[in-house]
């Protein structure tokens, strides 16, 4: 890329020609505040917080969208700039529900941070505010509070970036609001509850449905045997809530914290991820051998499943009937585990800690009660877990590392990497290869399906046959891939994760501010923690997991057996698009 020479606040700097003023300023270590800007997702210059003076321009310009050009002179700290930024921030605050103390984003709010940075002491423009909006609590996963909304549109862009686009802008001018078409509650739309809107929101206008009270109630009830499972991606991000650097794995501390919170048993969803690989891998071998319902498409991601049900019902038969690891675990706990421990399943309260908001929806699906009760009683996000830990006064960073409880504490590296895009496919290949070839796979790390490319492909030869696989993450990429499949492109096995980057970047993960995202890819950072754990794992293939072997030997007989089908497989429903 060609460079251009520009001058920012008197500093001469050469920057790539396709840069915006904001990017150039960052390169010169000049801080320009932003609010509506979310790199790569929402670059619309709407909030006017990042305005700068550009020599020769008639008015102030938004640094986040203004392209650099040769010889340009920019002033980011002139009196006019400071005045305008401050006035615009005050205007936003004048129409914002400023109940910071009781806000879910207190101390993690981009607007609050700006107010502090700008030294706002009073708000000159207090006037009428919007009407008081009712909260949209219609879905099991998310809550929208438009009283907090600053109309930055980051959620709208994030939703469009997922090719879901169920939210948009209604009305205009001062009474503009974000919502669904025809004023429908979100529950009536084709929202997939991925929660990408939540992690994009700079303020507290969007958050997950709070399920902490019911979990606490169960813990406090001595009659209840409360078990908890934690998904792989949770351990890769939970530390961020306690100030640890992004990508720090905190598995041991997390287990210790869960125990101190009063959970009776702390299990690892990685274990059931191994179980999922056994079922799904076997299902693949069956379909591949018969050439039926190919490509097989993974179904671990509830957001993706819902997306498929709404938008591509013609692919429902391609979805793996294997349940997600969370749901397999739920079913196993209330059947096998209950029987073994001699606890009535009614007295078991099964909690899942997930990086995901859509899991709250998945837990409520009527299909997921194969144990005779609802298999999962509550699904909490990583953020909710962090809140519970904070509320309990647990000094997270000082905790000793503890081990998961048996019998479901042992997992393989294959289960761990489920949390990153490509992980499920890689885990499946490790097992499918060995089951079909009958000999060990030499290179366990399948590079072409790792990384952050939207659609990744690989062609393997297993037992003399070519197997073409594809991996995509973010439902927008899934849409693109499915369109190619519809157009005739042949694949045998496809992994889809609803969230960009997979579960590490799920809608239930710690929220990273727009500014903290600069210069790093949170998806990559968090995935590193998982791949490191895989690399150091003693066992790295699902079929080698002794817990899983015991399960089949003593309970399910074999993968895809009748009993396995009853407990570990599910069905899907065609849903309307509108």
């Amino acid at each position, binding site marked *: 890329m060609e460079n251009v020479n520009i001058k920012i606040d008197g500093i001469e700097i050469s920057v790539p020609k396709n840069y915006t003023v904001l990017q150039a300023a960052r390169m010169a270590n000049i801080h320009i505040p932003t609010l509506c800007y979310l790199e790569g997702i929402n670059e619309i210059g709407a909030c*006017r917080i990042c305005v700068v003076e550009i020599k020769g321009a008639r008015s102030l310009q938004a640094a986040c969208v203004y392209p650099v050009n040769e010889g340009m002179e920019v002033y980011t700290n002139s009196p006019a700039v400071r005045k305008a930024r401050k006035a615009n921030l005050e*205007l936003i605050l004048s129409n914002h529900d400023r109940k910071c103390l009781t806000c879910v984003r207190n101390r993690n709010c981009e607007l609050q941070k700006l107010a502090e940075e700008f030294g706002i002491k009073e708000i000159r423009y207090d006037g009428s505010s919007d009407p008081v909006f009712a909260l949209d609590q219609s879905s099991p996963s998310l809550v929208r509070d438009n009283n907090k909304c600053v109309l930055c549109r980051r959620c709208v862009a994030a939703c469009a970036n997922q090719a879901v686009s169920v939210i948009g802008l209604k009305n205009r001018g001062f009474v503009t609001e974000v919502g669904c078409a025809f004023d429908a509650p979100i529950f009536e739309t084709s929202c997939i509850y991925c929660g990408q809107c939540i992690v994009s929101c700079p303020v507290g206008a969007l958050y997950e449905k709070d399920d902490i009270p019911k979990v606490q109630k169960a813990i406090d009830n001595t009659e209840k045997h409360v078990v908890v499972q934690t998904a792989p991606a949770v351990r890769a991000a939970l530390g961020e809530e306690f100030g640890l650097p992004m990508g720090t794995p905190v598995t041991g501390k997390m287990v210790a914290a869960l125990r101190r919170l009063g959970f009776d048993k702390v299990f690892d969803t990685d274990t059931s991820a191994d179980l999922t690989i056994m079922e799904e891998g076997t299902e693949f071998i069956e379909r591949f051998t018969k050439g039926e319902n190919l490509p097989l498409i993974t179904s671990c991601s509830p957001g993706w499943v819902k997306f498929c049900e709404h938008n591509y019902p013609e692919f429902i038969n391609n979805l793996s009937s294997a349940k997600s690891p969370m749901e397999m675990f739920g079913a196993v706990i209330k059947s096998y585990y209950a029987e073994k421990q001699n606890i009535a399943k009614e007295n078991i309260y099964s909690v899942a800690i997930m990086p995901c908001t859509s899991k709250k929806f998945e837990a409520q699906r009527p299909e997921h009660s194969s144990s005779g009760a609802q298999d999962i009683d509550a699904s909490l996000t990583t953020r909710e877990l962090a809140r519970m830990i904070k509320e309990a006064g647990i000094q997270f960073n000082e905790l000793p590392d503890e081990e998961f409880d048996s019998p479901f504490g042992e997992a393989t590296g294959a289960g761990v990497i489920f949390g990153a895009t490509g992980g499920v496919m890689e885990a499946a290949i490790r097992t499918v290869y060995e089951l079909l070839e009958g000999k060990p796979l030499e290179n366990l790390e399948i590079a072409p399906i790792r990384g952050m490319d939207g659609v990744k492909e690989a062609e393997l030869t297993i037992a003399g046959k070519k197997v073409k696989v594809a991996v995509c993450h973010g439902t927008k990429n899934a849409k693109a891939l499915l369109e190619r499949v519809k157009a005739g492109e042949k694949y045998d096995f496809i992994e889809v994760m609803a969230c960009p980057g997979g579960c590490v970047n799920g809608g239930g993960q710690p929220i990273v501010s727009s500014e903290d995202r600069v210069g790093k890819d949170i998806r990559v950072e968090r995935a590193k923690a998982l791949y490191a754990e895989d690399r150091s794992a003693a066992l790295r293939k699902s079929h080698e997991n002794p817990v899983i072997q015991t399960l089949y030997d003593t309970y399910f007989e074999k993968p895809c057996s009748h009993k396995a089908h009853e407990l570990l497989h599910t069905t899907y429903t065609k849903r309307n698009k509108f």
Partner: protein
Amino acid sequence: MELVRSHVLVCGGTGCTSSGSKQIIEEFETQLKNFDIDKEVKVIQTGCFGFCAMGPIVIVYPEGSFYSMVQKEDVAEIVEQHLLKGKIVTRLLYKETVEEDNVKSLNEIDFYKKQHRVALRNCGVIDPENIDEYIACDGYKALGKALTEMTPQEVIQEVKDSGLRGRGGGGFPTGVKWDFASKSVNDQKYVLCNADEGDPGAFMDRSVLEGDPHSVIEAMAIAGYAIGANQGYIYVRAEYPIAVHRLQVAIDQAREYGILGKNIFETGFDFDLEIRLGAGAFVCGEETALMTSIEGRRGEPRPRPPFPAVKGLWDKPTILNNVETYANIPVILLNGAKEFAKLGTETSKGTKVFALGGKINNTGLVEVPMGTTLREVVYEIGGGIPNGKQFKAAQTGGPSGGCIPADLIDTPIDYDSLIKIGSMMGSGGLIVMDEDTCMVDIAKFFLEFTVDESCGKCVPCRIGTKRLLELLNKITDGTGTLEDIDEMETLCNTIKSSALCGLGQTAPNPVLSTLKYFRDEYVEHVVDKKCRAGVCKALLSYKIDADKCKGCTLCARQCPVGAISGKVKEAHIIDTTKCIKCGVCESTCKFGAISK
């Protein structure tokens, strides 16, 4: 073409249509048949004559008799007396055209004398729904000339040389805009026409489309040839049904004649046009918002650069010009840039159409050479202020413009002079105000419009204009402070400097310009709690002059809230705590005893 001895031209502009010109045409047809002269006389519905105050207007040729305020009942008389017997119906003639039994030419009356109709050249002259009439008036000749005698670059140069600047408000040089787009390399480019006229009281573009739609089509084809585009869109408000209809008729006719479509005039040049209806959002007149709307998305502006000439509609190089700008193009190509540039000032060439409204005698549509003074427009063409009131100010540029005070009435109307005094040309709305106008209230009126029409994308416009309006409301309610006035000024400057699009950036202009020229009125509202124009209700109180009051009880009977009491034949009094200041008492009092 059939030969007839007389033509009856009936104005089919929106103003005259709404006062019954359609029924007048029908009546003419009926009466002509009655008198059995329907084969000799032809009735034609034309576009706007401009003199809307005198509508419905009927002109009979070859005499050129200018009948004004014609009613359906008058038609029989015109047909029998004038068309059958050859006697002009003097009582229906516009009074100024009658001078001691002589009928003056239309061009000699004050309203038309100083006008110079270039963009409106065919309005009121031809039948807009008949392409042959347009062609007979040199229509499509300019397109033919461009396609057969000129290179695209020569066309652009001609437009550049003419000095034509955008008539939509911004005043950007049209030729330069075309040049940018012609230099953008792309396999697909677009030519757009902005007919989303939205300023309150403005109807210039509407009248061109209603009266001479072919001139816009011709110009757009020329523009397409110049920049290398083969597709155009006209973005017109759905609230302009007559314009939309005539435009569609014109497009269909042009296609039928091979003037739109493939291989125009067998030169290998293809160009076609489609209409896109706007749903009436004011902001869709902003170029990027207009394109977003055509693309089928929420009509909202986006930041520039990239400019439309590089990345416009569907990210392709695009030019957007307003209706009036286009209407000038064929004239420039036919008569040459030099001829065109003879009219106007050094930096503003040609003419400008204004919709003259407000407190003025001759409301209507006028086209004057750039540089004509406001005084000439108001007093000579406009016929001055009704009821002998004083001229107070003129508002130009609509919600983005400003108010020009009486002491600047000799300002020449051109782009740069208007900017210099804190207003702008805008698309051509010109609203005249007299002494009964409160300038704070006027600022409030325009701001209410902007608050309502803000798209809501950027903060300064969405929230800033709302806060500004709230401050204005405080002032007109009598609860404002002097600090509020300063606060308003600061806020205006924030909005002006940091809003995303032109609509937002200019939204504070009505406030800023009234603050500049009429600050004393603001201060009066705040300090003296007085509205000198008697408009701001909160600051008014009605009182009865006991000496003048005859005790007729009429006001007490009319008062809707029973605020007036008094015995018969004794002076009445108003209970100000009950009074809602509706003014009914004042207007009913026969003795002038009630005043504000």
